[in-house]
């Protein structure tokens, strides 16, 4: 059996191993908790919050992978919105089943991503940001002006909820719990896809592209192909999230998908820590809950939120996920003394 190789930032998983045992246990416990959550609380507010958090984790996690490839993406809202509108139109106006529509919405978002990515991914940095952001605004403009199709500034009303499941027709989405489990399934699916992408060879090549794209191309890596594929998959997943959103809230408008949404996602990812997928999850949960806790305080809430972000960025640039490690460093320095040299022999 071959030894697993290791990447500097995370392990290339080739299968179960002893080190991941503890991680697996905690994941299982968390999963059990999430499954049981609706049984523990009947309060619709908590369920709604959980559902919203699931959605944002989905958005943030898919957004993160694009950031990790080194592209400053300011248009994530476009693909979420595209998925939402596409799905809404397909179900309300064309009579599709939700289950088909959500799948197609993801495909449509992915195709849009390929379309814009083909041009945008040739450039990086600010130019990429401008093009993606401009694309997002352009699409919003479309939603606002073509009222007959998209409903215009006042929005798109009367979006039906999901039709009952094929065999389990008791699950007819009349209760929030049904939506909860659907959202949970969706986010777990997305996290699984994103995790596998990053930890398979695909992810290794993405790392190579980020660390040295000229070099990667010189050994045969089709840089554009990988970038577009990543962009498409991430945007497709986000589009599916958007579709869920549309059929959960029954109403969408262009104001639901502004660049502000993307910037929030970016903050969740950066504060949580870009290194690892869990960073996106942690950052989203922490910042979202922080936002909710201070919901009644008007402007001070945003000040607190942005102030907190700045503090984290300055003091914990690796993000909250690295907090245990950072604290561990501080602790060991306190315990062992500043002149302790760990692992180094005599000078």
């Amino acid at each position, binding site marked *: 059996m071959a030894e697993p190789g290791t990447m500097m930032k995370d392990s290339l998983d080739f299968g179960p191993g002893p080190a991941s045992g503890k991680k697996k246990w905690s994941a299982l416990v968390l999963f059990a908790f999430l499954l049981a959550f609706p049984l523990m609380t009947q309060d619709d507010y908590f369920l709604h919050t959980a559902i919203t958090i699931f959605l944002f984790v989905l958005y943030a996690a898919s957004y993160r992978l694009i950031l990790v490839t080194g592209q400053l993406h300011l248009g994530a809202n476009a693909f979420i919105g595209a998925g939402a509108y596409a799905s809404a139109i397909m179900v309300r106006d064309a009579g599709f089943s939700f289950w088909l529509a959500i799948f197609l919405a993801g495909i449509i978002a992915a195709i849009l991503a390929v379309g814009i990515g083909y041009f945008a991914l040739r450039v990086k940095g600010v130019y990429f940001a401008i093009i993606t952001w401009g694309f997002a605004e352009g699409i919003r403009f479309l939603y606002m002006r073509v009222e007959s199709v998209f409903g215009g500034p006042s929005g798109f009303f009367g979006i039906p909820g999901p039709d009952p499941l094929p065999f389990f027709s008791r699950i007819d989405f009349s209760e929030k719990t049904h939506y909860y489990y659907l959202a949970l399934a969706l986010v777990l699916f997305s996290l699984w896809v994103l995790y596998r992408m990053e930890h398979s060879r695909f992810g290794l090549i993405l790392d190579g592209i980020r660390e040295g794209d000229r070099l990667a191309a010189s050994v045969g890596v089709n840089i554009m192909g990988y970038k577009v594929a990543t962009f498409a998959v991430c945007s497709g997943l986000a589009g599916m999230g958007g579709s869920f959103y549309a059929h959960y809230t029954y109403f969408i408008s262009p104001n639901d998908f502004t*660049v502000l949404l993307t910037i929030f996602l970016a903050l969740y990812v950066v504060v949580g820590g870009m290194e690892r997928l869990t960073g996106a999850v942690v950052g989203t949960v922490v910042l979202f809950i922080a936002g909710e806790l201070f919901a009644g305080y008007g402007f001070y809430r945003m000040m607190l939120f942005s102030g907190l972000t700045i503090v984290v960025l300055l003091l914990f640039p690796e993000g909250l996920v690295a907090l245990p490690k950072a604290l561990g460093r501080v602790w060991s320095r306190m315990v062992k003394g500043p002149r302790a040299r760990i692992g180094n022999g005599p000078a």
Partner: protein
Amino acid sequence: MTTDVFIQTILNGLTIGAIYALLALGLTLLFGIMDILFFAHGALYMFGAYSAYYLVVSFGVNYVLAAAVTLVGIGFLGAIIEKVLIRPVRSEVMAVFFVAISLNWFLENSGFALFGIKPKRIPPIFHGKVDILGASLTWERIAVVLISLAAVAALHLFLTRTRWGLGMRAFSEDPETAELQGISNDFVCTLGFFIGSGLAALAGLLVASLFIVTPTMGEHAVLTGILIIALGGLGSIPGALIAALILGFIESFGASVLGADYTWGPMFMFCVIFLIIRPTGIMGIERS
């Protein structure tokens, strides 16, 4: 479109363009020197407007004195921001970007808390207007355009004739050897922020006399500013000025034809299409 409406739209575009030019100038300076998109520029612009408002309207200070105090005050604020918030993370591009965005929100919301939601405006200094071919141009607007031109000229002289200005340019081209010429890199960055913030404040106080002042005005301003400098070619001052004028005209014509709410779309589409064709912007400046 009738001739006088056409002329009016052009004149409006000129005024808008002049103000955008000031904004873009500040942003270009910051981007050119430090390679950062300073999002909080918009908040400083907004603070400049409010500072002018409070000094002139609430304290009855002379307009010129108020302007001077505002420019210097906001300039120092920018310098402090650079020292405390930007310098620690200067090397991490994304961190700087997000610090700037968060700062923008922080300042904008503190603006809400401090200044209230109700829009405000400063009464104009110069009264009366000039009629050009059926369209009217107030002296106030002419003054704004002239002040913008003066600021551009002053900046140009600064960058080409003074030791500090040349030091800045040296730093933007080659940070390592620039230090050898005797001006510390840290000082260049702080100075850059001082001037850039001052320019933002200037744009803000000029707008205060022409349009209304709200805490959210910075948002639109900085987003447009970023669009402008990308269109013009990142880091290029002439490009920024040309792009500012172009977008000023597009906004003006957009407002005329489509209505004031729909100016975003055409401005964005223009920039996006232009950048797809020519990603390095009007002046074709390539920055790695």
